Structure formats: structure tokens, C-alpha cells
């Protein structure tokens, strides 16, 4: 837990960089905090969803009459209750979602595209009654052959998920019906000639499994509707305003009728940037004229909500003897699930972003398969891309007998370099991260038998987007700050720290609140590592606006011009003829609010540029048991540029949590399907996320190279930490067993296979 300061920001902070106890912590350690499933309303019904028992089938007939007659049943909803809508883009999560697809994912229309796809929903007095009624709905399916893998999807005679839908993107595009929904490609320089001039070339396929975000709180919502068409939606979401617009579009409702109140959120990691239950609950509530609660089971979460794409990536990397990269070529195949829209686009942009590679080419394919529709997952697409490239770099380092950090240092991007995705980099901290990792004691720790050390790096853009904030002053001189970003990992604390820093009051005197869509100004969702950066900027601006009021009030009290009042260290100080006045604290001014013009309140809104990229470097020391193939993580280090850590504990927490998710994805987590396309492991027992005894302490180094786009130098930190681990852990295992691993997760059977292959 050390800090390495880059030069730059010379501002001396009083509160930023300290570690106060988070304001919402008390309610979270005592069980008072209300999450999605914790709300109960008088007269509330319980909703349940009937889900497809087939991975790929046409719905021939759907009959709900028997179910409607069941005891306690108040309403049933099918796709017939949803308005028909056209195609067209809408921004949400990592990509543009087609509203028609969004709606068809929420409730299947005509065809089911994965096992667990919703086909009908029931609201009844009790959850048992709703579930019983679901069983009485008769659905006549024409079962189709499921397309479960990328290879099956691309086969010549593959069954087609979306008949009549054409691929879009960069030509050449497939003619006629296809499971390829989008093709992207780009190139720079003469790649083929450059490979010919390379001294060493590595190439290979790198596969990663579909993996789930794994938030502990299942999706949940409670909806009330009114006779005038209004809908009050309580739900666990990363973006209440996004829920509002997605419900409006899927139900073709006037958005003005919708109010969304975010509950406390029990994890999201991107998976709660989209919607599943909310429009269904609105329709059920409208029909039943009662509030309706819907809560997913864990099994439903696995079968029907956002995993991230499984991928097959072929990568080729060429290098000169001195270690300089000369050429790279990549083909990326991404599982989109049942509907178009994998994070392949972001993957293609992050793929080469950390290095200077003079000649490169990539092709990326977004491919539909009969698996759940993927949703955003922490730096969507980037971990898969980095897995391929960072593994290839490790192979090159071994072949060239160059230290893997030195090889990266030789090619790493720095300020002024042109990013592979186009523009020039401003100040970035990749070199600083590599050096910090190299200098860390872990990098020099001796390794024993069957042990290996992996190095990996990662890049993520971090986003800006729209945010607003309101700061108001109470008559006791305390403050309230309101934003619209659900607090998923400590952001209330960073908002309060920001107000305390600006106004010069103790952080305990600031109360940070998260509002609903009617009580706060518009905020884009909690995602893209944007809250402390972008919403933090709105809070800084709102605080500065409050200070303008405070100066004016002080001028009123002193009978002087506003120009003669400065705000310094949390108090109004007189200058130029007003300097004989005793400085007024915030509390002094607050006491006189009523006499000086009334309540003091100010808002601000921003739509700042994308937020200054984050770079991270991870080290993993692993021991592999050659008898069982089991990998044990011995030591793990995360080094990342945070720009400026507003609350260092929660920055470290992001580093550690992202690393743990990546370790799980690399070693244990995968979606297993039977031959009919039914997920075989839809529970935490068999979908194996890391538990406390699986991991060591995760050491962190917070590098601070200030982001020139933010007044404090803040960079987003949430997503970058999941980018390096897949390759980092893979490189550690490969070095421990002396065989290069090409497939994740590296479960004991796969590792044993690799060891056996080596023995021949």
C-alpha cells in the first residue's frame, strides 16, 4: 500500500487522499441498508417468470388460460403485451443496444434464443402461486438445433439465429443469412512485409470462457403503477436514468411517466447497466392494478442475465532481436449470446493500445450463439483482448530471453505517442506502473519448485459522460451533496470528500445522497469508471458555485463589494478595504442565511471528455501441483495509475476486487453447457468464484500520474484492474509448468493435460 507520485499536481489537499469512514457504512454493517429485494409495499404481488427449456426454438403457440384460473393469480404477461417496436440504436452499457433486441431479450417474441429466455410472467398473491401458475402455461415449441460455440456458429450449414438479418460493419461481409452480426477491421502500415522483417514471431489461438459478473445481489425490482399511466420503479441498478429510458423505449412509454428510485446495489460490475425485470413488472402491475415485486433466483441470474463473451482470439506478434515490436495481427471472435452486441468493438480499440506497434491489423467478429445475451462486464472486451496480446508478449520474452517487464518498457506508450485507436496520448502512467512493478519486492522474491511468476499489463479508456450534482448548506454549516449515481463501491465517500475539500469543512459534516430520477439532475450510469471522475467534477463545480454564494453573503454581512471577499481555507476573508473584518466560517455565514437572502444551494452539470486512460501492471506468483494440476496463487500485486486517489482505501479495493475477478476467470470460472444448450452449472457451487481461502493478500501500489483533464488529477480506477489478470495468471501457470497455456479457465484437468502433453 505505497504511493508513488508522478510529478505534476502541486495542489496541497486537506481531505482528498485521506481515508474517512464511508457515510453509508453504518447502515451496511448493521443490515439497515435497503437493497433491491428489501422493499415491501402494502398489497404487493409477487412476480415469477416462465423461462424457455430450450436453447433455440420457435414459439408456435402460447396458452395462458389455465394459468390465469389458478388460485392467487392476478395477471399474466407475454410478448403480446409489449408494443411492437422498430430497430435503431440507443446508448447503454458498452455498446449501442437495438431497442427491438432489448425488448426481445426481456420477453421472447416468436423465438427463444437461449435456455432460460423469458417467455411469460405471472403476478400472484404469493411467489409459490406465481411459480405454480407458470407451470400451467402451455407453450408449443418447434425445437431447433442450438448453436453453442463460435465454431458451430461459423460453420457453413449453421442454424441461423436471426433469419434475414444482415451483418454490418467493415467489408468484406458475409452474404446472406449469417450468425456474424458485425465485422470490424483496421490496419496500419505494411503488416505482411513487417512480419518478414521480424527476428522472432509468435502466434496462436487464445480462448477465454464466457464468465459472469457474479454480483451477490440478484436482480430485483418493485413497481407501482397509477391510473394516469405513471410507473414508480424501485430497482437495483447502476443507472436509474438508463432504466428510465430503457423502460420507456421497450414499452413505448412517455418517459415523463416513469420515476426510477435506485435501491442500494449489491454489486453490478456492468451487469446492472441493462434491464430484465422492470418492464415486465410495469406491465404486470398495470394489469393487476397492484404493486408487483420481482426478484431473480441465482439460477435465473446465471441462465438469463449478462455474462461477458467467451472469445477465441488468434494473435500473431513479431519482434526484432532488441525487443522492439514490429508487427501484430489479430482475429477476434466474440460470443454475443442470443442477440448482437458483444464488446468486440472496445476490445479492438484496447487490443494494441498499450504499445507502440508500427504495423498492425485486426479483424473482429460479433457472433450470435444460443447463450444468454452478454452484458457489460468491467472494461468490457479488454480482458479478452489483453489475454491474447499479453500472453504473446510473454512468449516473446521467453524466446528472446528478455525480462518481461523490460520488453514491455521498450514498447510501452507514453505521453505524445499515437494510440493504436487514433489520437495522441496526453499524460499517462504506463511507464511509471511498469517501473513500480519492477522495483517491487515481489518481483525479486525467490521462486521454488513448480512455481512461476507472471507479468501482465492492461489498458482501459475510462469514460466521462454526463453528470449533475447539487450541494446545499444547512443552517448549522453542514452540507448535503446529491447526485444520481448509485454507490457501488464507496462513491458517496468520494463525493463527500470532494465537497469537504472545496468548502473547507470536515468530511463528517457533509452528507452524500443518491437521488431518484425526479429528485436529482441527470446522471449517466455508474459505470465506465466514471463516477469519481465525472460526477466528482460536477460536485467540484457545484461546490465552487456554493462558494460564490458564500462570498456574496459575507459581502452582505460586511457591507462591502463581493470582489473584496475571498474564500480561503474554509472561510470568507476580507481584502481591499474589507480586511479589518474577522473572517467568517461557513457556519458563521450559514447561521445568517435567512438574513442574507435565504437558503444557499447550487447545482452544476458536466459532460467532460473521456477520462484519461488507466494503465495497470500485475504480478502473479503461482504454484502448480503437478500431481493434481491445481494452481495456488502465492502472491499477487496490482500496480495502477489512479491519477489521484480521492479515497485510497476504495482505490485499493477496486484494484483488489478486479484482480480477484480476473483470477477467478483465469483459473476456475466458466459456463458449461450440455449438448442441448442447457447451462450445467447455474449456481455458486459449480460456477466457481474465488472464496476467501482461494486467495492470498493482494498487494497494491497506487501510482499517481495526474490526469490533466481533472482538477485533482483523478483517473477512473474501477475497470482497468480486471484487464491484466487473465494473461498475468496464465503467464504464471505457463512458466510454472513449462508449457504455454492457451485456454481459460486453467482448471486442474486442463493443466494436467498440458503437463502430460509436455511429457509426450
Amino acid at each position, binding site marked *: 500500500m505505497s504511493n508513488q507520485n508522478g510529478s505534476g499536481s502541486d495542489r496541497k489537499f486537506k481531505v482528498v487522499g485521506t481515508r474517512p469512514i464511508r457515510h453509508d457504512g453504518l447502515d451496511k454493517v448493521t443490515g439497515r441498508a435497503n437493497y433491491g429485494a428489501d422493499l415491501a409495499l402494502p398489497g404487493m404481488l409477487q412476480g415469477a417468470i416462465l423461462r424457455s427449456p430450450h436453447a433455440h426454438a420457435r414459439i408456435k403457440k402460447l396458452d395462458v388460460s389455465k394459468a390465469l384460473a389458478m388460485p392467487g393469480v392476478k395477471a399474466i404477461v407475454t410478448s403480446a403485451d409489449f408494443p411492437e417496436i422498430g430497430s435503431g440504436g440507443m446508448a447503454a452499457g458498452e455498446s449501442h443496444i437495438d431497442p427491438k433486441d432489448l425488448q426481445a431479450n426481456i420477453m421472447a417474441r416468436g423465438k427463444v434464443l437461449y435456455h432460460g429466455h423469458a417467455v411469460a410472467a405471472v403476478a400472484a398473491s404469493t411467489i409459490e402461486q406465481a411459480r405454480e401458475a407458470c407451470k400451467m402455461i402451455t407453450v408449443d415449441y418447434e425445437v431447433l438445433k442450438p448453436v453453442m460455440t463460435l465454431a458451430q456458429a461459423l460453420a457453413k450449414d449453421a442454424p441461423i439465429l436471426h433469419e434475414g438479418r444482415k451483418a454490418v460493419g467493415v467489408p468484406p461481409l458475409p452474404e446472406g443469412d449469417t450468425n456474424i452480426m458485425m465485422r470490424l477491421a483496421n490496419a496500419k502500415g505494411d503488416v505482411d512485409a513487417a512480419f518478414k522483417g521480424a527476428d522472432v514471431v509468435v502466434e496462436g489461438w487464445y480462448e477465454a470462457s464466457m464468465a459472469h459478473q457474479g454480483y451477490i*445481489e*440478484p436482480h430485483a425490482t418493485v413497481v407501482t403503477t397509477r391510473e394516469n399511466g405513471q410507473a414508480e420503479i424501485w430497482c437495483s441498478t447502476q443507472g436509474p436514468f438508463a432504466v428510465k429510458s430503457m423502460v420507456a423505449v421497450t414499452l413505448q412509454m412517455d418517459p415523463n411517466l416513469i420515476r426510477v428510485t435506485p435501491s442500494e446495489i449489491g454489486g453490478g460490475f456492468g451487469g446492472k447497466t441493462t434491464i430484465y425485470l422492470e418492464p415486465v413488472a410495469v406491465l404486470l402491475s398495470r394489469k393487476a392494478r397492484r404493486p408487483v415485486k420481482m426478484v431473480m433466483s441465482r439460477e435465473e441470474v446465471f441462465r438469463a442475465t449478462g455474462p461477458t463473451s467467451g472469445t477465441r482470439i488468434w494473435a500473431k506478434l513479431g519482434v526484432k532481436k532488441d525487443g522492439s515490436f514490429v508487427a501484430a495481427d489479430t482475429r477476434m471472435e466474440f460470443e454475443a449470446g442470443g442477440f448482437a452486441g458483444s464488446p468486440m468493438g472496445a476490445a479492438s480499440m484496447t487490443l494494441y493500445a498499450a504499445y507502440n506497434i508500427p504495423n498492425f491489423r485486426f479483424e473482429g467478429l460479433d457472433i450470435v450463439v444460443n447463450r444468454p445475451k452478454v452484458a457489460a462486464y468491467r472494461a468490457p472486451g479488454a480482458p479478452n483482448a489483453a489475454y491474447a496480446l499479453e500472453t504473446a508478449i510473454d512468449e516473446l520474452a521467453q524466446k528472446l530471453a528478455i525480462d518481461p517487464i523490460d520488453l514491455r518498457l521498450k514498447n510501452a506508450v507514453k505521453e505524445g505517442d499515437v494510440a493504436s485507436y487514433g489520437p495522441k496520448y496526453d499524460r499517462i502512467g504506463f511507464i511509471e506502473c511498469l517501473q513500480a512493478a519492477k522495483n517491487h519486492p515481489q518481483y525479486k522474491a525467490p521462486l521454488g519448485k513448480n512455481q512461476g511468476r507472471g507479468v501482465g499489463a492492461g489498458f482501459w479508456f475510462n469514460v466521462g459522460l454526463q453528470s449533475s450534482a447539487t450541494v446545499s448548506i444547512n443552517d448549522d454549516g453542514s452540507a448535503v451533496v446529491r447526485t444520481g449515481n448509485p454507490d457501488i463501491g464507496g462513491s458517496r465517500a468520494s463525493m463527500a470528500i470532494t465537497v469537504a475539500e472545496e468548502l473547507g469543512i470536515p468530511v463528517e459534516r457533509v452528507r452524500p445522497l443518491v437521488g431518484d430520477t425526479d429528485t436529482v439532475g441527470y446522471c449517466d450510469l455508474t459505470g465506465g469508471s466514471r463516477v469519481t471522475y465525472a460526477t466528482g467534477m460536477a460536485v467540484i463545480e457545484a461546490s465552487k458555485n456554493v462558494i460564490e454564494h458564500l462570498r456574496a453573503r459575507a459581502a452582505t454581512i460586511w457591507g462591502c463589494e463581493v470582489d473584496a471577499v475571498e474564500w480561503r481555507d474554509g472561510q470568507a476573508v476580507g481584502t481591499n478595504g474589507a480586511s479589518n473584518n474577522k473572517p467568517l466560517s461557513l457556519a458563521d455565514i450559514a447561521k445568517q442565511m435567512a438574513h442574507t437572502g435565504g437558503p444557499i444551494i447550487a447545482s452544476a452539470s458536466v459532460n467532460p471528455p473521456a477520462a484519461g486512460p488507466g494503465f495497470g501492471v500485475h504480478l502473479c506468483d503461482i504454484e502448480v501441483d503437478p500431481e493434481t494440476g491445481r494452481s495456488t496463487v502465492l502472491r499477487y500485486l496490482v500496480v495502477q495509475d489512479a491519477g489521484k486517489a480521492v479515497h485510497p482505501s476504495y482505490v485499493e479495493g477496486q484494484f483488489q476486487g478486479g484482480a480477484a*475477478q480476473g483470477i477467478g476467470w483465469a483459473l476456475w470460472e466458466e459456463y458449461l453447457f450440455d449438448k442441448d444448450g442447457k447451462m450445467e452449472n447455474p449456481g455458486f457451487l459449480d460456477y466457481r468464484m474465488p472464496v476467501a481461502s482461494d486467495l492470498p493478500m493482494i498487494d497494491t501500489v497506487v501510482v499517481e500520474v495526474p490526469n490533466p483533464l481533472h482538477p485533482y488529477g483523478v483517473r477512473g480506477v474501477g475497470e482497468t484492474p480486471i484487464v491484466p489478470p487473465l494473461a498475468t495468471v496464465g503467464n504464471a501457470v505457463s512458466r510454472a509448468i513449462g508449457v504455454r497455456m492457451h485456454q481459460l479457465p486453467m482448471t486442474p484437468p486442463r493443466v494436467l493435460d498440458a503437463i502430460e502433453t509436455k511429457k509426450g
Partner: protein
Amino acid sequence: MAKIQVQTTINGETFDYLCDGQQSLLSVLRDELGLTGTKEGCSTGDCGACSITLDGQLVPSCLVLAAEAQGREIGTVEGVSSATGLHPIQQKFLEHAALQCGVCTPGLIVATRALLLKNPNPTEAEARYYLAGNLCRCTGYDKIIKAVLDAAASMRGESA
């Protein structure tokens, strides 16, 4: 179906409730008694979010039938703090930033209390294995384990 009448003690207070034969204790705590501090993450006993103590023993309340609680003592997160304030475990979770989203936290607090009653001086490995039934997806467990060990030290009267 006839309801079953159950008398039990929750956090030291006597409770009477009616339940169905197959109803889980978790469901009664949350849906009938309004004790929503105990969370549901999986309902298969794999995540630990619904951890409670039953006569002092740590159990996932989703796997306990409500009817089984007859005459027994239940401990939930709502009973961890007292009139004098937070329990040291709760205080240390806050100080160490051992929670992010917080939904696993009630289960972890209850589990940690059960651990430290059995073993007031656990090693890091002992703490990790005892808490292996409590999933946290946000933190990577680092700060949780530090908070647990620090809470143990504090409860033994040592300053960590």
C-alpha cells in the same frame, strides 16, 4: 395447508410466527418479520449472504426450515450492535474499508462473530477457511481478512 406455529428467540427477543412446512427460515426472517438485514444471494447455501447463528452455530438460513427454529436461539446481523454502539467487528469493517457494495457484509459480520467466539486468535489461514462460505465479489477479501484479524486483536484487548 395448515400453518405451523413457532416460538423462537431472535437476538434475545421472543418471537412467535406462523410458517408453511417448506418455508425457509430466511423467508420468514425477511418476508414475515421484516428482518431484511439477512440477505438472499443464492438460496442454495453457497454464498453465505443469509448467514445467521442457530444456538450459536453458523448456518445459512436459506437451508434451515422455519419450523426447525422452534425453541431455539437465532442470531442475525440486526443483533450484532448494542445500545453502547457498534460491535468491534462492525467498527473494524468500517475502518478497513472491508466492504464495497455491502450486500455480503451482514453475512460476513455474523460469520466473523461466530468465528471469533470459537477462536479468538485465528491465523490468517484459519480466518480465510472459516469465511470461505461467505462470497464477496467486490473486495478480493484482502481488506475483509485484515478487518477480521484486527477485530480479533481488538476484542482480545490488543491493539493491532
